[in-house]
């Protein structure tokens, strides 16, 4: 057994946790913004998938990883826009529309993939990493944490930035008010519909980048349905984080570790059926919901359409 917990094992585990957890982090962060503003964004799975497709498409054609992320963000926002119009402006059910958008995005990207890439299955070249001098030399965690593609550092930065915005800006107060008591925000002169729409677009943007990361960095390829529930795990992350961005970060790393355990265990040469290992993250989701589900405090106006003067 002592041969199991070797340095390569831990490096693979931590690295895998970060690679698999990053899309979850971006999705969870995005979902948190929507939920804070009072929008239950079920369409986030579709936004991620559209982002994965958009990111891969742009990166493949331009050869630029950064334009790929931009493509991913646009893909996510392309799904977020109908959500904003139908649910926030027109007041349709957020759950029904969210599911419809997810199913729609799955079908559309699978279809486009079938015509464009199904014959050749092109791969993207490996993404260059940015080693942070000094820190990357630390054993075990150094190569895993501080020798990563730059987008990883930006995503971590986004956690700090979101935390700052939530805590220390008028925007953060307004988002909180939109989810807690939208009529109070309206009375204070802030356009609730606009704010919520922007929140949904921000979610689309972050989820889209998360999806693009999966395609560009994680897999190097676009495969239909490749997000495989990551967006839904993001919803769980946002709920258990109770409005705190760092809660999403820890949750994402935990789930990422579960996802990467398969790879790490293979590196260590242990043979557990992969089906069992692949079940881990979803078992973890259930465990988290059982343990923390009752403590999850959701905004009172979550999922409730706001109409001025309506009671």
């Amino acid at each position: 057994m002592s041969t199991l917990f070797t340095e390569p094992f831990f490096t693979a585990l931590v690295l895998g946790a970060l690679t698999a957890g990053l899309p979850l982090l971006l999705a969870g962060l995005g979902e948190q913004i929507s939920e804070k503003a009072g929008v239950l964004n079920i369409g986030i799975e579709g936004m991620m998938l559209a982002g994965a497709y958009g990111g891969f498409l742009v990166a493949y054609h331009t050869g630029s990883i950064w334009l790929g992320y931009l493509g991913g963000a646009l893909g996510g926002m392309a799904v977020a826009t109908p959500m904003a119009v139908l649910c926030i402006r027109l007041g349709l059910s957020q759950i029904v529309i969210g599911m419809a958008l997810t199913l729609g995005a799955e079908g559309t990207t699978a279809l486009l993939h079938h015509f464009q890439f199904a014959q050749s299955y092109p791969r993207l070249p490996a993404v260059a990493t940015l080693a942070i001098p000094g820190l990357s030399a630390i054993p075990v965690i150094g190569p895993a944490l501080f020798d990563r593609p730059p987008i990883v550092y930006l995503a971590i930065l986004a956690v700090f930035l979101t935390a700052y915005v939530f805590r220390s800006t008028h925007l953060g107060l307004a988002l909180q008010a939109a989810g807690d008591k939208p009529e109070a925000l309206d009375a204070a002169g802030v356009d609730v519909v606009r704010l919520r729409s922007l929140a949904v677009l921000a979610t689309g943007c972050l989820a889209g980048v998360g999806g693009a990361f999966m395609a560009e960095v994680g897999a190097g390829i676009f495969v239909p349905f490749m997000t495989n529930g990551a967006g839904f795990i993001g919803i769980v992350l946002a709920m258990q984080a109770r409005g705190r961005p760092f809660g999403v970060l820890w949750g994402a790393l935990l789930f990422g570790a579960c996802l990467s355990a398969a790879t790490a265990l293979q590196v260590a040469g242990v043979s557990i059926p992969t089906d069992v290992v692949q079940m881990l993250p979803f078992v973890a989701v259930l465990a988290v919901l059982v343990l923390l589900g009752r403590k999850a405090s959701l905004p009172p106006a979550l999922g409730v359409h706001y109409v001025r003067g309506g009671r």
Partner: protein
Amino acid sequence: MNQPRAASPPPPASPLSEPRPVISLDSVTRRFPGALALDRVTFDLWPGEVHVLLGENGAGKSTLVALLSGLHQPDAGSIRVDGRAVRIDTPARALDLGIGTVFQHSMLVPSLSVVDNMALGGAWWARPDRAGLARRMALVGAEIGITIDPAAKVGALSLGERQQVEIVRALLRGSRVILLDEATAMLTPQGAGKLGELVGRLAKRGIAVVFITHKLDEALAIGHRITVLRLGRKVGEIAPDRLASLGPAAATTEIVRLMFGSDDLTAPTAAPRRDRMAPPPLLVIEGLAVDDPVVPLAGIDLAVAPGEIVGIAGMDGNGQKQFAEAVAGQRRLAAGRITLGGTSLERLDVGGRRRQGLRYVTDDRLGEGTIGSFPLSLNLLLKDVGEPPFWQGGLERPEAIAAHARRLVEAYDVRTPGISAPIDTLSGGNVQKALLARELSGAARAVIFAKPTNGLDLQSARAARQHVRETANQGRAVILLSTDLDELLELSDRIAVMSRGRIVGMVANDEAARSRLGALMSGVAA
């Protein structure tokens, strides 16, 4: 500057030199589907004055607040602020005009601190200036004599404290007009007293305060000027000098007359029922008590003879609904006995009491009274679902149900496109007729009517009153809960007054009844 100067340049307004209203409403009308919420209401608001708007529920008070705070727009008429016609189309616009509103339901975000609530609405990228706001809050608070912890979470504050926060916030935003919508409705008497003092201090600072209430004693204690609304119309205004010269007693009489005074449109459907000989009571309620977080009931005794109508008067929300539900079996009794013709009811559930002949015609007609999407025919049998002859062995018998529905539609003159029309497509008057048909048919022996004409047009109201009277004429015991004094005086043999969950007096319906009821309702007489 603001306006092109006229020949004689107006000096920068000193309120004393040229007094003019801050806000004037000119023939303002607001319609809602099927209702006229405000009908050509005109009134002025003066700086440094507490202007009380007094009226029953549905008088149009809250609609008026909604118009001034930018939640609704008038359909006709104009609103002037400082003499200029304005359109208040958003809440933000109302704030810009210096109109701050403290709504009946708190408009603060519970999960944010007091100071963060004040900061709401600032430039999005900026850091809220929490320290600065807290300082200014303390300053304004000191001026009007209140202190609030700026770091406290609003969710942890009492209702009274939340109102203080809202008033301070309105002042911080430069409001010259503060609207208080039913601000005392959920306060303790001490809390209400404190708020009254605070409002007085605001007026001394030159703020115009609109104080909305349906409590007469508060209006007299706090108001400088009193406007009375009734069914969307302004029925009277008592100016400050007049109010001062009248004195509390005479002012009370005057206001009671205005609030409940005779109204040409509601001509009686028959002469008042008086001098009825009362046989032994049919429905007897003894020592009834109900636990309720808002209005607990205690020690209610009432006996109703067959063929008698006992009215229950009182301002809305004094326990009438709790009382009706307790008697009907929809609420648990804390204590007390109810007997109907010698059979004791208090251990029976709703269905059991109904089988004994006790009926309750609710005022929540579309809520608990009917199921909106169900056809009229089923709504007419809502309390007999599964019973023969309409259901047999668990199966519906459509012909029996339809025949029953057609008979009742005919007998009660329900105007409907057909018996299979969903009941929520019917007008309020016809829904009420259907409800009456359901409750009064069969073996009814005692009937409780809760505000039977509430929200109905005149013709439907007349029909409903006629049904109340006929119910009694058929020898049934009738309890009539109403906030409309005219209706009670027209129909009842005796009238009890309910206040804060107790019966505070019982009056025989004679010539002096109106003034004695007014006194009882306003709390002047004990």
